[in-house]
């Protein structure tokens, strides 16, 4: 037998997977749609943009429905590691830079997408009753709020790519129901209901119902809660009650029974985007022990930061102490964590670091849920006896970078703070070894 290893030619010289012509056409259609949207910004009429948007959506959906030709329902991860776009090749880096760049523009330089914001403004007015584009008395545009436009694209991505996730995992009812859940949570709870409620409430106070503090950092600011409580009527008071109850009551109870998945992979908007738009890149998460160590430091550090920041804001609001410290902390937390980390890096780095960069390394809500899941929960991933063949599919496709195989091959249950319960390890396991279960806390780590 020859000296092997380094010289092994284990990857094909040419990618053996050729796209069906229909799928190529769909990719072209999608790119054309994006270009038409870009054209709007350079002065083309809004209708060109709508045409581009529809073209992009239709192209995506045709591509997605064509996936049924890949064979009967079942896991079909063929060619992922041969695809540059999906496994950190040139196209993967291009997409990473493109999404990151787009996020930087939308978050920090919305004037570069001003006409796109204007384009969707009629929709915003229809939903919330209020424009996102401000005008002076002469009717000239004086400013743009990008957040409806951003939410619109975000929701659209979850819906379209949610259809893809359902198509891809259609052999699993767990995956189908979970995907429908994140799609509905984003569309209704996160996107439509807050705006509709604000409209019913005549504009007095806005609240992100789907987000729970400490993820919902801005919503939990003392002036905002105070305003909602005092000036926003029944809906406002309900929002305040929910804001408090969601973290101190609902979160511990549901996490005790079902693990953090009830939120992270069934409801949360960040999780929703990761499970749909991010799904094609889930395998790019780092599985090394080193990454796990970094993860634990970072996520708990962010949790400390948000507790200190929110706490300082409350102390200042209530007792007028600590001066401007709270606002300074808020400014930096908002910029570095909420915008750069959760937004730009969290999504922009999908193609390079996998779909859960923010959820894994940053999200303070995930940290809270993780602590509860690790120490006070009935949830675990059960290993089915000694049947693991150490193949590595579970670890490879874990978006949270958990080395699932490490536990499975020992016949140990997987009880990890970071597990969001997406269920993909169980779906990709070729020997049916893994199962997400809720059971007695006693003996939950056991073989």
């Amino acid at each position, binding site marked *: 037998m020859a000296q092997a290893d380094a010289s092994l030619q284990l990857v094909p010289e040419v990618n053996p997977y050729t796209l069906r012509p229909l799928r190529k056409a769909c990719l072209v259609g999608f790119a054309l749609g994006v270009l038409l949207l870009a054209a709007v910004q350079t002065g083309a009429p809004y209708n060109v943009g709508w045409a581009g948007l529809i073209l992009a959506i239709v192209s995506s959906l045709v591509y997605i429905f064509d996936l049924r030709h890949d064979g009967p329902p079942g896991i079909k991860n*063929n060619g992922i590691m041969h695809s540059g776009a999906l496994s950190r090749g040139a196209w993967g880096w291009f997409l990473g830079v493109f999404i990151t760049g787009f996020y930087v523009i939308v978050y920090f330089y919305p004037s570069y997408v001003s006409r796109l914001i204007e384009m969707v403004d009629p929709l915003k007015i229809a939903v919330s009753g209020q424009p996102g584009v401000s005008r002076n008395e002469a009717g000239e545009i004086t400013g743009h709020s990008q957040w409806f436009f951003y939410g619109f694209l975000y929701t659209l991505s979850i819906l379209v790519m949610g259809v893809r996730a359902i198509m891809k995992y259609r052999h699993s009812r767990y995956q189908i129901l979970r995907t429908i859940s994140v799609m509905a949570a984003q569309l209704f709870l996160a996107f439509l209901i807050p705006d509709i409620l604000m409209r019913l409430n005549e504009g007095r106070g806005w609240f992100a119902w789907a987000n729970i503090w400490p993820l919902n950092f801005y919503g939990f600011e003392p002036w905002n809660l105070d305003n909602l409580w005092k000036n926003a009527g029944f809906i406002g008071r309900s929002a305040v009650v929910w804001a408090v109850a969601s973290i101190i009551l609902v979160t511990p109870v549901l996490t005790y029974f079902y693990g953090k998945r009830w939120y992270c992979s069934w409801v949360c908007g960040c999780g929703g985007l990761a499970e749909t738009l991010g799904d094609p890149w889930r395998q790019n998460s780092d599985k090394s022990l080193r990454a796990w160590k970094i993860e634990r430091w970072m996520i708990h550090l962010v949790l400390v930061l948000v507790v200190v920041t929110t706490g300082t804001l409350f102390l200042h609001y209530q007792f007028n102490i600590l001066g401007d410290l709270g606002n300074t902390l808020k400014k930096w937390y908002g910029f570095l964590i909420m915008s750069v980390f959760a937004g730009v890096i969290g999504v922009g780095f999908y193609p390079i670091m996998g779909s859960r960069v923010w959820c894994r390394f940053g999200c303070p809500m995930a940290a809270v849920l993780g602590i509860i899941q690790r120490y006070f929960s009935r949830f675990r991933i059960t290993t*089915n006896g000694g049947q693991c063949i150490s193949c590595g599919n579970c670890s490879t496709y874990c978006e949270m970078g958990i080395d699932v195989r490490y536990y499975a091959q020992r016949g140990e249950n997987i009880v990890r703070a970071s597990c969001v319960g997406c269920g993909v390890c169980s779906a990709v396991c070729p020997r*049916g070894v893994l199962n997400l279960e809720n059971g007695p806390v006693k003996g939950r780590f056991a073989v």
Partner: protein
Amino acid sequence: MEHVAIIGNGISGITVARYVRKLSDKRITVISAESRHFFSRTALMYIYMGHMKYEHTKPYEDWFWEKNRIDLIHDYVTEIDTESKRLTLRNGPAVDYDKLVIATGSKSNKFGWPGQDLDGVQGLYSLQDLELMEKNSRDVNHAVIIGGGLIGVEMSEMFHSRGIHTTFLIREPHFWGNIMRPEEGALIGRHLNGHGVELKCNTQLDHVIDDGNGRCRGVVTDQGEELACQFVGLTAGVHPNLDLVKNSAVETGRGVIVNEYLETNVPDVYSAGDCAEIRTNPDERGRVEQLWYTGRMQGEALARTICGERTRYDRGIWFNSAKFYDIEYHTYGVVWPEDREGETSMYWENEAGDKCMRFVFNQEDRCLIGMNAFGIRYRHQVFERWLADNRPLEYVLTHLSEANFDPEFFKHFEADMVDKYNQMNIGPKVTLAKKKKLLGIF
């Protein structure tokens, strides 16, 4: 410090190394010519299909070995001298050992077919085989696979993922006929057909056709049919790799002959895994177990013996698993290809014909002997307990829901199985016990 040298870094050799480290402070060296680090052989197919890269198939990160003081040598052992307890390597310096473990694995079976050594004709066992397959399948649009078994179906799935059409030549009247019963074989056969795979049952290879340049261009079956193809997969089983051992003092038969303690005829020399032939009775043909699971269990037992706690290898209640394209297969206990004397069985299949169950039980006391599950996951520990406790079929069926291991929200078929059983009138009537659900949801 005592030095344990292990030849072969597959699951058996590596399990010995890991457990010797857990149990002792001995010096450990693992020698392999195949790869520098341990990887999961069972995952070879996924590398070809692009589900994983080679590095994903390594169960431990590369620093693991140094941290656990397991020395790795990437070299080929050319000679074992059991007198001076010395291994000669092809490239590096010789290695002296105190205890030696032979875990050299298997080689693909070749039955002397004319043309079996042509280019484009190969088996699939090692990393090098995979590399060869990558080369050999570059311009292939049709592959013929000899032997309907587990490696064959993996090979077929690999080709299928790249749009290469495959045809099976199967000696038996149905798929995996030396293990599987006709109903199960038919179910898998239908599933393979659904993927566009062609099965030629009751058919064997006669010879491989040379294209004139030393490469295969087709096969001729024993029915005289000629099939054009550019690749021939030889997957009619494997046999112990004895290339190294047969010129040493270590006794061999079909494999390296060992007793139940995995000890060879030479003191301080042991063998485990695919290459070992276990003889409980010196006059009988021993058994060769070529499974990932048995390799691991043998490795564990052998490590104890090496560390002074002489342990008999006991494989316990038999189990195995596989996956045929989209259909998972589990078996617990013993299911022979047909009922043996005193055995009888119950077979259930869903309406769609892609899931099935078989329960084999004792005719007299009705105790469960074995089960096959296709397309439904069942708990290993629960069935192991039922088999160990000699539970009768009606008990198993009553409590079957407890053993279900399918993900949440999956459709359950236990009630249907119980109905079928009750209709068959083969024993006392059974009512399915309800599985307790928390808040009625999960």
